[in-house]
């Protein structure tokens, strides 16, 4: 009798088992509505699944690729699944972030009524399964099915509170842009399909890899992929759904969407560009770099002027995606220029940033969710002073905020550092014009990073610090233990990813090797990150952290022992005006006002200012995305105009309808006998 041991299964089989597990969990939720106790177990079990998935990803990163063919799919085109290093890395990302978020969700959703909890569990786990399958898919059909399952399930998650018209609108916009992007991806796969037409196997990635593409068609495929994946990732100008959908969704879902789902688009872009398209043109990189930088700056500027905390975080996601895409563009530039080592560096940077973003954005969204849950307010102008009521949430969120602001020694800094290093290494490029572009690009990245700090000070400061701006805050309570545990996991991720870059980079290296054919050599020791050469650049966060910590302790001890610890509490300084109140603090709008003033050109500002005789003066300022007016409105108008024209053809008179038939007939007769 043959024995079956666990090692008989390839990682990809485990990953698929995980997907099936999630699916089973999701659908069982529908049938467990009577058994509240069991229903409550679904989310923790899902979290365990995520942890397992991260483990599978790690195994795939370490080991060789594995593939299976499933018995479902189209005839002759069953689902091909494959787990290689690239998929493995993103599985780690997914599993790692999803574990924290799902754990958090198990607490966050506990107050939902049974029916809604069951639906939530269904879509949530379907969403997880969809994202995982996207990473595993090895043929276009499986990929697209998973891609759209991901979109659809997240749509239903976004519209959980569909009573509000805003949320419906957000969901609609989200699904629409996702769908248009998906069609674009379809077209991309249409270009890429290899082999003879008429073979369904032509849609497997294996055939696509071997297909020879003319440069023109390769470029078409690339542009379609950039559009399609860009729409999902939030590339400007396809970003409009993002700041609508993320706030609309329940917070764990926003965390998952922002932290993980956007990364699947990055995964897809990498997969298509490096793995499937063989020919590569240099200008693709320039394009991606430009778009990425525009996106980064655009995102961060708008993040700075938001008053809704989840919307702020959503815009910040756009910024981060922009940074990642800029890295992607730079990788392409280096790669096509034959600078494999540099390509490896930038690729490492972008993968690192993707990983980081999953953790800190997950953390920030869960933190914001905890605040929302506790106060029922998303508007920062009604918050403040939460640090004293919910210290756990506050401190954990602070870690996320510092990390995303790119401050050492947390993880955001590492990826930013790597990316900036890459910019500094460009002078070796063969195309002089790029040498001129790069400094500007580097400057933009630096600017975006600095603005991100601005944004995060605003986010954290206005929400958690200061004095409560509305009574809603007074009833706030600390998040439950499951939420805290989830956030703690994510925060730990931020810290660890920040402190052990060499280890993380070693983990990334199989992916980098797979895509660029080179790995990043670390010149330093295990402590020190020196991507090219210790002479050129190095960074040792653990030493750094230790020194900060030691200095801090020394100073503290010295101050305590050399002097005294006496302290007295008093009223704050009121500048001689005793009637200070919470409204005199900067509001979120006020904090963003300088940015709004500087970058006025990109925004459509709506202002409502009180007149001098108002009894209850109110000020309202709203900064809208100008691209909405510049891009989407005209498209909508054009569609409406065309639809109007077409509609006029159908005016109800049967004689005219007959004329159409008649004209068609005559036209065709002339056409075929010509």
């Amino acid at each position, binding site marked *: 009798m043959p024995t079956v041991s666990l090692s008989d299964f390839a990682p990809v089989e485990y990953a698929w088992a995980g997907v099936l597990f999630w699916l089973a969990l999701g659908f069982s939720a529908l049938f467990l509505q009577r058994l509240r106790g069991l229903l409550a177990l679904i989310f923790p079990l899902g979290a365990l699944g995520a942890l397992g998935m991260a483990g599978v990803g790690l195994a795939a990163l370490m080991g060789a690729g594995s593939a299976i063919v499933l018995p479902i799919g189209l005839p002759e085109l069953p689902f091909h699944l494959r787990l290689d290093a690239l998929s493995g890395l993103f599985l780690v990302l997914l599993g790692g972030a999803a574990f924290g978020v799902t754990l958090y969700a198990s607490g966050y959703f506990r107050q939902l009524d049974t029916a809604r909890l069951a639906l939530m569990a269904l879509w949530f786990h379907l969403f997880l399964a969809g994202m995982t399958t996207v990473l595993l898919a090895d043929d276009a059909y499986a990929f697209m099915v998973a891609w759209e399952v991901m979109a659809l399930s997240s749509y239903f998650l976004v519209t959980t509170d569909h009573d509000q018209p805003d949320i419906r609108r957000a969901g609609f916009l989200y699904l629409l842009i996702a769908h248009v992007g998906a069609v674009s991806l379809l077209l991309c796969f249409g270009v890429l399909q290899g082999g003879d037409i008429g073979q369904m196997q032509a849609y497997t990635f294996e055939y696509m890899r071997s297909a020879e593409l003319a440069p023109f068609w390769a470029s078409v495929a690339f542009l379609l992929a950039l559009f399609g994946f860009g729409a999902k990732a939030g590339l400007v100008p396809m970003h409009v759904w993002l700041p609508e959908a993320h706030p609309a969704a329940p917070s764990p879902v926003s965390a998952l969407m922002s932290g993980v789902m956007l990364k699947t688009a990055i995964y897809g872009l990498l997969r298509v560009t490096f793995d499937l398209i063989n020919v590569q043109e240099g200008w693709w990189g320039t394009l991606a770099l430009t778009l990425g930088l525009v996106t980064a700056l655009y995102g961060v500027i708008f993040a700075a002027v938001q008053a809704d905390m989840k919307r702020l975080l959503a815009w910040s996601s756009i910024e981060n995606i922009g940074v990642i895409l800029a890295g992607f563009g730079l990788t392409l530039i280096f790669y096509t220029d034959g600078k494999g080592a540099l390509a490896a560096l930038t690729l490492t940077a972008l993968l690192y940033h993707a990983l980081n973003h999953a953790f800190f954005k997950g953390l920030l969204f869960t933190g914001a969710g905890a605040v929302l849950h506790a106060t029922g307010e998303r508007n920062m102008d009604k918050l403040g002073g939460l640090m004293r009521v919910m210290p756990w949430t506050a401190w954990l969120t602070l870690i996320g905020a510092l990390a995303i602001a790119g401050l050492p020694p947390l993880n955001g800094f590492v990826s930013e550092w790597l990316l900036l290093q890459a910019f500094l290494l460009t002078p070796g490029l063969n195309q002089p014009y790029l040498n001129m572009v790069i400094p500007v690009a580097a400057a933009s990245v630096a600017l975006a990073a600095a603005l991100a700090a601005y944004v995060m000070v605003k986010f954290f400061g206005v929400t958690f610090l200061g004095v409560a701006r509305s009574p809603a805050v007074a009833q706030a309570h600390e998040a439950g233990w499951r939420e805290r545990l989830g956030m703690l996991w994510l925060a730990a991720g931020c810290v660890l990813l920040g402190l052990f870059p060499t280890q993380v980079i070693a983990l990334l290296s199989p992916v980098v090797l797979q895509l660029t054919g080179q790995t990043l050599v670390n010149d330093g020791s295990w402590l020190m990150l020196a991507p090219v050469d210790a002479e050129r650049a190095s960074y040792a966060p653990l030493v750094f952290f230790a020194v900060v910590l030691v200095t801090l302790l020394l100073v503290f001890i010295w101050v305590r022992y050399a002097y005294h610890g006496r302290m007295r509490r008093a009223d704050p300084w009121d500048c001689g005006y005793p009637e200070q109140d919470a409204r005199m603090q900067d509001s979120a709008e006020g904090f963003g006002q300088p940015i709004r003033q500087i970058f006025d050109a990109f925004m459509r500002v709506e202002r409502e200012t009180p007149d001098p005789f108002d009894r209850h003066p109110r000020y309202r300022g709203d900064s809208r995305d100008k691209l909405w007016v510049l891009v989407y409105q005209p498209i909508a108008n054009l569609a409406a105009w065309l639809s109007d024209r077409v*509609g*006029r*053809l*159908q*005016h*109800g*008179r*049967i*004689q005219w309808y*007959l*004329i159409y*038939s*008649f004209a068609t*007939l*005559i036209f065709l*007769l002339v056409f075929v*006998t010509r």
Partner: protein
Amino acid sequence: MFLAYHLQVVNLLAALLLLISFAMLSQRRITGLVTLFAWQGAALSLSTAIVAWSTGQHHLYYSAALTFILKVLAMPWYFYRLVKKLNVDRDVEPMINIPTTMLIGIALVIFAFNLALPISQMSGTVTRSTLGIAMASVLLAFLMMITRSKAIPQVIGFLAMENGLFFAATSASYGMPLVVEMGVALDVLVGVFVLGIFFFQIRETFDSLDLKHMEKLKEK
């Protein structure tokens, strides 16, 4: 080569058919239209019978008989009755004025002839030129349906089109298989029956058979 007399008669009838089509295009009164329709049916029936006799295809006799009964007797009678009953024998106001319609009609005839020319030349049947005429009368009937704004003339146009088709079937290709012809005839019969029901419903509902009342369903 001279054609046999009977074929000359068929050609003559074909010309008559076309002439009647033109006449129908210019006819304003519904009763007149019905009469012309009956005449067209008669010409069709006659030509079918001649073809049947000359080729010895007996099933064409059935067709001829069916045509005669349906299109010369039954339908015109039915339409007369309808017109009387519904009292709608007013002047027909065409959508396009008659001279223009005639001009378009002539253009259509030329077009149809041109279209049918290559086909006629390869036709095995002796009455090959009739295909062009059949096509022309189909197109003319189509034109008539377009220009008429009342329900009954439109239906007559529709039936006239069917006449053209029949003519194409019988005279140009010596008839379709009997089953098909029977089926077609049955369909026409049912169709007219349905139409009759319709006319009453429409009349009941709109108090008129004017198509102007039926322009509500449209893209606003």
